[in-house]
Structures are given as C-alpha cells and as structure tokens.
C-alpha cells in the first residue's frame, strides 16, 4: 500500500505545528482575499512569495495553496451578500446567491456555499491523491526532448484554453519567453538583452514581474473604475446557516455534478476555476427540471458553481504537481514560487520530494476543515471586513508588495522591475492581452531554452527528435493541435457555413 504510506508521510509532514499554523494562516488570508473585492488569489499569492521566502519550500507552498483554495470559499460570501464577486470564480454564485439573500435566505445560501465548497474541495483532493501518482510515474523517463515538448504543450494550452484571444495570448507568451532570455546565457555565458545593466545579468526577477503584472496593475485598473461598495445588513445566526432537508435534496445532483466537472475541467491546463464554475452552472440549468427557477434564488445555482470552483482548485494541482504545467494565473505564480525554492516541478517531483508533494496534499485536507469552520461559525467576522474601504487597501497592497520585493534580495532594482511590469500589466489589461501566459513563459523560459538546445545538440540539429520519441511525439502533437486550434475552429466554421448554404 504505497499510497497509504505516502498519505501517512504527508500527514506526518502537514501536522507539524509550523505547517498547521501556516496552513491556517494561508486559508485565513485566502478567505480574506476572497471576501474583499478588487484583490484576487493571484495577487495574494504573488505578494506572499517574498514573505514566505525564508520558509521551507513545503511550508511556503502549503501557505500559498491555502490562499488559493481559501479564496474560493471567501468569494462566495461577497457574491451572496452584496452581489459583487469577491473574486472572478464566484461570479456565477451571484446569480442565485444574491436572490436568495434578497428573499431572506442569506443564511442557507452562505451555508450551502461553504458546505458545497468543503464537499467538492475534499472530493477533489481525494481524486488528486489517487490520480496524480500514476500520472507522475508514467512521465518519469523524461529527457530534454520530452521536457521541451512538455513545456511547449503547457505554453500553447495555457494560451488557447485561457481566453477567447489566442493570438494575444501567444504574443504574451512570446514576450514572456523573451524576458526569460534576458541575462547571462547559462550554456555559453553570453550576456543577452542586458542593456549594460549589472542588475539584469541574473535575468529579470520573477517576483517583481509577477507582483507588477498582477498586484500593481490590478490596483491601477481599480483606480480607474472604483469598486462600488455596498453593505449588507443580513442577520446571520449560526443556526440560520444550515440548509434544510429540502435544500439538500435540491442540491444533491448539483453537488456531485459540480464536483466532477470542476475537478476534471480544472485539471486541463489553462482552464482555471472561473471557467469551471461557468460550465457547472450552465450544465445544472440544462439538466434541471425547473430551469426557470435559476436566477431567482435556486439553491442548486449556488451549490453547483461553488462546488465546481473548489473542485477546480484541487484539480489544478494535478498538472501543476505531476507535469509542472499551471492551469492559470494563480498556479503559474505558485509554479514560480516552487522554482524559487529550488524544486523542479514535473514528473520527478513525486519521487524526489515525496515529503513535499504529500505534505502539500495532506495539508489541503486539513485546510478544507479549517475553511469550513472559518466560513460557517465565523462568517459574521468576514461580513465586517466588507466594510473596509478599498481606498485603505490600495496603500496597504502597494507597500506590502514593495517591501516584500525589497526583502527578497535587498535590492531596490527589483522594485523598479515591479514598477515597470505594473505599467506593462495595466496596458496589457486595457488591450486584452492575458498576463498568465507571460508569467508562465518567464517561469519555464530557461527550461524551454535549455531543453530545446540540448535536444537539438543530441539530434545534430534535426527537429525530428521531438516527433520520433513516443512521449515527446504525443506531447508535441497535442501542442501543435492546440497551437493551431484557433485556425481549425475558423476553418470548421467556414465548412459548416458553406454546407448550410448548399
């Protein structure tokens, strides 16, 4: 019983006082970030990298993962009470959650959101526990061509699945790869694109870039369109939070469908929790016997997206831990954090760092228990946090970000990197260029280049090496299909249209 032993090892790691404490701090911050509109989990995780810099890799990632799935819980509170998404994955929860609150059923809506999150979140971790190890062991015999094919596939999938603008996503990824080229070339020692700056010899710092692209640009966008703050006067006793038997009956189907959909769609690189909650809501409406009740306060309209976004947070860990491919912005930043801590995410992680992987997985079981406690009996506290004006948050986010960046290297130059990418990120948001492909490209850029050049050295310059080896062949083909899928989609549409005309 390898799995059983591994889980025991994991709980042994996760149950150290330090890891329990930071798991708790992580889910606490996550809930807070989820509750507060205008600051999302990606920003939260980016800001945390410098703070967790001095910790062990396991503790650091346990904290960050806690922020990620914690935000999925917290977001629903804001959606239900004030009809404003606390973060993007809880947009769908607003539709029925807020209507329930208006009908005086805020309690059961919040309760169902928390319990659905717990059930689906735990389900996803169980699935992760069983699915990730065989996937990782399958991918263990990776050489340079396989690594190149894998990273190539990751980049194309994150770009095509992440949004409706694949061209802009590709450009974003290319720019990220170019940023990764800055600095001394690890193979030949040549300085590239350093503009004669000593500070750029080591390359562009990932932390500064991530915080700039996500945290600073988010603030700039929110200054442009200030968040309207509305307060809720809902009375929330602990007893009022429990959904009644009928609510459970109505939500039962939504719960298991949301969990399954969320987990499996969440494992696809580039999908993200937001997409999963959209799909889960749409499916629930489709299969419902009373689709007309959706949008008027149907509790299954809360259970489905809330279950799905939490299951997706667990599902996103599968490609991250087994292949080193993130599913969106938040996991891309976590991948960067892993690399900073000297871990090379990918198939080998399970065999080289079992205490890390299993410690993280076990901590997620524990974190979900913390979260259901934080979000049920203590819900009243979070409602009070909604009264913090966003104006106060702006200086706090900026100073925490800047201080953290300085702290990682005692270098003011990294703060300028943050400044620069804050500006770049703002312009990118305005022009509809997605940031996650760029961050991912910077994180894995060096690996892409190394594996590409090593492969071509092995093959004496022939690119056939990426197609003739079975694993890299499959991965390259998937990458190419994904790369050209926008064109295929257009061609398909034209074909169908011409058939229709005839």
């Amino acid at each position, binding site marked *: 019983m390898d799995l059983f032993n591994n889980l025991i090892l994991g709980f042994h790691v996760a149950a150290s006082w330090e890891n329990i404490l930071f798991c708790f701090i992580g889910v606490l911050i996550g809930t807070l970030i989820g509750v507060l509109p205008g600051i999302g989990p990606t920003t939260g995780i980016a800001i945390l990298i410098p*703070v967790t810099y*001095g910790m062990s890799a396991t503790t650091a990632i346990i904290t960050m993962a806690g922020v990620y799935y914690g935000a999925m819980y917290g977001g629903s509170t804001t959606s239900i009470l004030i009809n404003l998404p606390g973060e993007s994955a809880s947009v769908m929860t607003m539709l029925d959650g807020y209507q329930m609150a208006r009908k005086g059923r805020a309690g059961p809506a919040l309760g169902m959101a928390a319990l659905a999150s717990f059930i689906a979140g735990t389900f996803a971790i169980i699935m992760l526990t069983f699915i990730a190890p065989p996937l990782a062991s399958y991918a263990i015999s990776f050489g340079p061509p396989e690594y190149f094919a894998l990273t190539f596939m990751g980049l194309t999938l994150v770009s095509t699945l992440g949004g409706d603008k694949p*061209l*802009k996503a*590709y*450009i974003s990824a*290319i*720019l990220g*790869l*170019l940023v990764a*080229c800055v600095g001394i*070339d690890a*193979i*030949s020692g*040549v300085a*590239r*694109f350093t503009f004669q700056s000593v500070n750029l010899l080591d390359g562009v710092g990932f932390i500064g870039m991530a915080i700039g692209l996500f945290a*600073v640009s988010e*603030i*700039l966008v929110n*200054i*442009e*369109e200030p968040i309207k703050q509305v307060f809720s006067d809902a009375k929330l006793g602990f007893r009022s939070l429990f959904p009644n038997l009928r609510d459970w009956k109505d939500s039962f189907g939504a719960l298991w469908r949301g969990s399954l959909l969320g987990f499996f769609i969440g494992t696809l690189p580039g999908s993200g929790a937001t997409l999963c909650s959209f799909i889960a809501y749409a499916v629930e409406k489709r299969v419902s016997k009373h689709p007309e009740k959706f949008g008027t306060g149907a509790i299954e309209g809360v259970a489905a997206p809330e279950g799905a976004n939490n299951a997706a947070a667990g599902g996103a860990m599968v490609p991250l831990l087994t292949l080193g491919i993130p599913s969106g912005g938040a996991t891309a930043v976590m991948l960067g954090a892993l690399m900073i801590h000297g871990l090379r995410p990918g198939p080998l992680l399970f065999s080289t760092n079992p205490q890390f992987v299993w410690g993280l997985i076990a901590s997620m079981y524990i974190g979900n228990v913390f979260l259901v406690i934080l979000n049920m009996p203590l819900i009243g506290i979070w409602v009070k946090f909604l009264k913090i004006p966003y*104006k*106060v948050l*702006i*200086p*706090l986010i*900026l*100073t*925490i970000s*800047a*201080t*953290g960046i*300085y*702290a990682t290297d*005692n270098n*003011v130059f990294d*703060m*300028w990197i943050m*400044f620069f990418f*804050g*500006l770049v990120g*703002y312009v990118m948001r*305005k*022009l*509809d260029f997605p940031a996650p492909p760029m961050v991912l490209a910077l994180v894995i850029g060096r690996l*892409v*280049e190394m594996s*590409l*050049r090593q492969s*071509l*050295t092995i093959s*004496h*310059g022939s690119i056939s090496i990426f197609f003739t080896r079975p694993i890299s062949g499959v991965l390259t083909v998937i990458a190419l299909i994904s790369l050209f899928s926008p064109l295929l989609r257009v061609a398909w549409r034209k074909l169908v249209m011409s058939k229709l005309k005839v």
Partner: protein
Amino acid sequence: MKEGDLITGIVLLVLSGYVIQEAWQMPPSATFAPGSGFLPFWLGVILAVFATILFVSAWHRQATEKDSKPLFPGKQPLLGIALVLVGLAGYILLIEVFGYLVDTFLFIVFLMKVVEHEKWQLTLMVAVSATAALFITFQFLLQIKLPSNMFGF
C-alpha cells in the same frame, strides 16, 4: 480596441526587429549546437509574424461598438493612475535616502491624502499602523534589514 491593436502591432514589429538584430549579433556556438542567439532569433521572427497578423486582422476588421469606446479612461481617473505611479516611483527612489520608516509613512500619506482625498485622521491612522506593522513583520519577524537613512532609522 481596433486602434489599440494597430498601434500594438506596430510597436511589436519594431520590438521584433530589435530582437532579431540583437540575436543576429550574438556569437554563434563553437560547436554545431544552437548558440545564444538561437532562441531569441526565432522568437523575434515568430513575434514579427504574430504582430503582422494582429495588425492586418485589426486593419480588416469592421469597427464594432467596443471600438468606439475610448481605450483609456478620461482625465480624472488617468490623473489618479499617474499620481499612483509617480508616488510609487518617488517611493522607490527615496527609500534609501529617507530610510524605510519615513519613506513608507510618507508614501501612504501621499496615496491617501493626494490620490484618495481621505480625511487626515484616517490617513494618519493607516499610515502609522501600516508602517509599524510592516516594519515589525519584516525587520523583526522575518529578520530582514530594511533600508535606513543617514540617521540610522
């Protein structure tokens, strides 16, 4: 958005030209293996292709409703964004002159008073407590030496 895409296309084309030129001048590898300029060169080429597609497709696209909306906000919010950026730049420039405590305090006061027009009471409360909390967290709990001024704080 149409106008934005056209301008972005041109900017990216110029950038790709610069990248290709730089990559071309990088020394080739001593062996038959790809050298330092290999990846940047091809990235530059692909970027040029994508930038051209972006430009051409934006050129041919019918202007939609979204295109008629101005890309960047009006004067008032733009001023707010500019002020935040100026403040942040000033904060970074002066952090090793004023020292962490003074600089951070002033930065928060600037953001709340000049950018957000908050009351003095709230401004000072947030500035003092946030500066203190950050200083204690980083300097003492995380044991990181934050910049100090010539008077040693």
